[in-house]
Structure formats: C-alpha cells, structure tokens
C-alpha cells in the first residue's frame, strides 16, 4: 500500500509499510492496589510491580507512592482541624458543606498537582503516566505504560495520521 507523500511528510522516513509495522508498540497498564493493613484509610501498596522493572527506578516509584500515602493520611487525619470542621458543619446543619471547600478537597487538589508534576518530571520521560486515584474511585493508582519501539527507526520527525483513508 502506497501512501501519498503529500499527506504524510514522515513517510519519507519509512521505506515501506513493513518498517512502519515493526515500529508499532503496545501500551499496557499496571494497577497499584490499596493497602488495608491500617484499616480503611486510603493507602496504596508500595510493592514495586514487575512490569515497571525496566522502566523506572524502584526508589523513585516508592517515593511517589509514599508521598501520595502521606497526602492521603493528612487528608484523613483525625485531629483538631477536622473536629472543628465537623462541629461547625453540625452546628450549621451541614449547610456549610455547600459553601466551603473541605480540607479533604483542598488536599485532593494538592495531590492532583503533585501527580501532574511527577508525570511531567519523572514518568512521562520514561514513557509512563500516573492516573490520579480519584479518577478510579480511590481504588488503584493506574500506571499506563507506553512502550516505544526504539530501535528500528531513526527518524524522529513528528507526524500525524494520514488522511489517505479519507474519501
């Protein structure tokens, strides 16, 4: 199958379809499950999954998960501030929950920023993406693994899907 060059400037990088096929790669996902050993608080296992063995250093991964666990522990911490918030909410017949952002929500925003930062700095360069656990019902940390073909093609020009399929 011949692709018209004007549709795909990158085609020059590939001599034939076969080479294109050989550059195909696979994406997979790893799920870090919850650790319930301390009860129902939100905490994730720090066990290093085997699939990430060749992709990222163990220490980086563990540090990310431990930091996330710390954030969640802080959000669910039972102490003066949470009691104050709870009592104030009770006194106002819980209407205050409609008006103000709870401490938990504020920390969730911090977690979101942290995950984004981690993705930018550490995970994306290694072909990984972390998904915020809140988007998975706080059940798992989903790590998407993008594999690159790496070796065959030396070209690195950007491309986009050809529209040669267009009618």
């Amino acid at each position, binding site marked *: *199958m011949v*692709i018209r060059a004007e*549709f*795909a400037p990158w085609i020059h990088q590939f001599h034939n*379809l076969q080479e*294109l*096929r*050989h*550059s*195909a*790669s*696979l*994406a997979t*996902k790893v*799920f870090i499950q919850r650790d*319930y050993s*301390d009860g*129902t608080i939100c905490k994730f296992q720090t066990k290093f999954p085997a699939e990430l063995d060749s992709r990222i250093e163990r220490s980086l991964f563990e540090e990310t998960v431990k930091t996330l666990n710390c954030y969640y522990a802080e*959000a*669910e*911490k*039972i102490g003066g501030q*949470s009691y104050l*918030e709870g009592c104030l909410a*009770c006194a106002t*017949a*819980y209407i205050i929950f409609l008006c103000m952002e709870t*401490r938990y929500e504020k920390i*969730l925003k911090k977690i979101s920023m942290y995950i*984004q930062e981690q*993705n*930018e700095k550490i995970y*994306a*360069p*290694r072909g990984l*993406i972390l998904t*915020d656990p*809140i*988007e*998975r*019902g706080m*059940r798992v940390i*989903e790590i*998407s693994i993008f*594999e*690159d*073909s*790496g*070796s*065959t093609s030396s070209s*690195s*020009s*950007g*491309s*986009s*899907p050809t*529209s040669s*399929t*267009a*009618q």
Partner: protein
Amino acid sequence: MKNCEYQQIDPRTLRTSTTRTSSTLPCGRKSSHRLRRKWEVFPGKNRFYCDGRIMLARQCGVLPLTIGLIFITSGLFFTFDCPFLVHLTVFIPVIGGVLFVFVIVSLFQTSFTDPGILPRASPDEAADIERQIDNSGSSTYRPPPRTKEILINDQVVKLKYCFTCKMFRPPRTSHCGLCDNCVERFDHHCPWVGNCVGKRNYRFFYAFIVSLSFLTSFIFGCVITHLTLRSQGGKGIIQAIQDSPARYPFFTNCTLNSFCTVVELVICFFSIWSILGLSGFHTYLVASNLTTNEDIKGSWSSKRGEESGNPYTYNNIFTNCCVVLCGPMPPSLIDRRGFLPADDAPQTVTSDAELPPFMAKNDTNMCTQGTKELIESMAHSTVIQSTCTPGTPKTAPVTQESLLSTVSIAVSPPSKPSTGCSDRQARRPTDMPCPQRGNKRAALHVHKPMLRLPSPPYSLGHSPLIFSDAPDMGFIPLN
C-alpha cells in the same frame, strides 16, 4: 503537508466542544450536540436531578411519606399548639422552629447526598484482577474467587469480590441490591429517606434521627401540656383566646383544635418509640464504630460475644463518636457532574484486518492525535504542533484531567462507559475490543497510525513515545 481531509480537533475542546462534523464519523454515529455528564450514563439504579447535583435511589421508598408526616405534624403544631403555648413562654415556637429546620435540612442532606458509592471498575482494572487470579491458578478461564483475606490491625478480614462492580470490595463496603451500587461503609438502605446510608451521609442520617427524636418528643410534650391545660380548664389562657377571637379565628372552634391536637398526639406517640429506639441503636453503633450491616451480621461479636473483635474501633467511646460524626468528609467518588470524554472514542478495529495500520478509521485519528499532543504537552508543558495540524496553536495549558481523560480514550476506550455507538444508557461495554483476537490486552491498544514525535525539545531517557495500531495484522512489535 496540511492536506488533511478530516477536521482536526483541539484536544482541549474535546470535553467542551458541542458539535462534530458527521463526515468525520465514518461509522455513522449520530454526532452529539452537547457533551454529556457522567450522571447520564451512571450504571447504578439512581435518579439524578438538577443536572446531577441531587441524587436519589431509584426506589425512593416512603420518602414522600416521611416528608409529609414531618410537615403535617409540625404544621399542626405551629398552627394549633403554639398560639396557646406561646403565652407560657415564647421559646416554645422558637425551639420548635429550630428543630424543624434542622430535621428538614438533615433529611434532605441524607436523601440527596451520595452515600459513598464506589464507581465500578474499569474494564482494564477488571481484566487486571482476573489476570492476577488466572496467573495464580489454572490456565482455563474461571471467575475470580469470591473472597480475599487481608489483615487489618491483626484481624483477618475477608474481602468479597463483587461481580457487578467487578472488583474486590474494600473493607466495610457492601453492595446495595436496591441501588445496584457498592457503597463504602455501608450501613443500610433506608426506605424512609429513600437512599442508602453510607460513609458520606451517615452523619446526616444520625443528625436527622436525633433531631427528629427531639422534635417528636418536644411536640409530644407540648401537645400533652396543651391538652392538660385545656382539660384543667386553664381559664387564663383560654379566656385570653376567647377574648380575642379575631386574632385566632381557628381556635375558637374547640372541636377542630382538639381534633388536630389529637392527630398530632397519635402521630407522635407511634413514631416516638421507633425513632427514639433507632436513635439509641445508632448511638450505640457510633460509640462502637460499627455499622448496622456488621451488627446484624454479627461480624465481630459472634466469636467472643463482645465487640473487641472489631478492628476499626478506637476502643474509646469519645474517639469513636468524634471519628464517625466529626471526621473528615470524604469526597464523592462518582463525579456525577463531570463531563464524559468525547463520544467518538476510538474503537478497536473489528473488520479491517486487511487494512494497513494507518488506514484506520478517521475518528481514531482525531482522538489519538489528541493523545499524542497531550502526552507531549504533559511532558514539557507545551503543546507541539502536529505536522498535520493546520497551524492551530495550542497554548492553553492542558489540565491533568482532560489530559488523562483523553489519554484514556486513546489507550483504553472501553474504560469510559460513554464510548461506543450505543444509546445514552450505555453500560460499561461488555464486548472486549479486538474480538477476533480474543485477548483482553487489546483493550489497551491504541488504534492510530504510528506516530513518532517530532524532535522532542525535552530530554528523553528513552526514545520518543510511539503509539501504534493494534498489531492485528500479524506483525510483531519490536520492543
């Protein structure tokens, strides 16, 4: 070259765009003219109002009766009893009013709040769990085992597998058959409030029943006082009323007055037993950090005849109460007002095995083009213009959520329940993509032509990220 015949879609507008050109949807799906919110495709049996702000169980039970009884009783109280009793003290109607407001607000909070519903597992997650189970067992497919044992505070706890939600339920989570949802810290499904009572609304429910017991007792007491004063012929009050009939026209009619008071008495008498009993029971549960579900099943007390087996208790009544009632308020996990990803998420190739990878459907190109853009933008916070993009600069920052939602589209389309050509009530797609391959990992294949990133301005430890079409043409990807 820029001679693209399909419409490029800015990935950041995937969540906010309202139109699609139908020419770019070759599989003939109707283009949606607005983005849908997640509540519209929620798989559980719930009803949503006010565009997802308010949620109820589908079977709202006797909630109208509850509201009716409260309003009628309180209405009768304020109409017939307060005018008499206000002469005793002005605080009677004030206290009654405060209690009434508290009861109604906490009732609505209980009924209309997400009780702590766990969203169902995405197909990837479910597949991962099954794969883990399969790896540990026989090679033939069998359903995952129903239980998994874990250790919580040195106590063995069994986690059950929920076949509806396709996940092992966290501790204290139970699946409500009426709402068809797994609810965290499931207490019970209360028909009187028309909703499940779980982690997020237990404090509202407790506030409701306690304040209702106070209100019922208060009205009962006031009614008794009123009737007593009448029967004793409290001439002072009655005389005062009769002297000014114009002020209280109703109350010159003693028959009507008495009738309404008796109605209140009957309602209060019958409800006070059950409500006081319920309040007492839940006070006990709160003090022991138990749920109704656990207490009824005897999860912790059967072996030793005491609740010391409960791994969640803090062994201190005050701490337990504070934790349950004043603990941090967890967020809703179902994000019912969030927008669904674009409807035209790429589906895996089903019948185009003979086509080369980049002859895949145009609709996949748009989303996966967006994916490539977002990966790049996420990696170094700038968006790289695709060579095929007709020069549209994308300079606005991409939010994490939109980024990941679009990535999720490209990477695992079935994970979003909205994908597919099916109707608005599409459930999680049960058909795994790439059916002819019979491989669950097909869900993760990105169907787009090979995209090699342009010379990346950021330093990569590895080669640039490459997305490729599903290798269903028999080629072997090189790793």
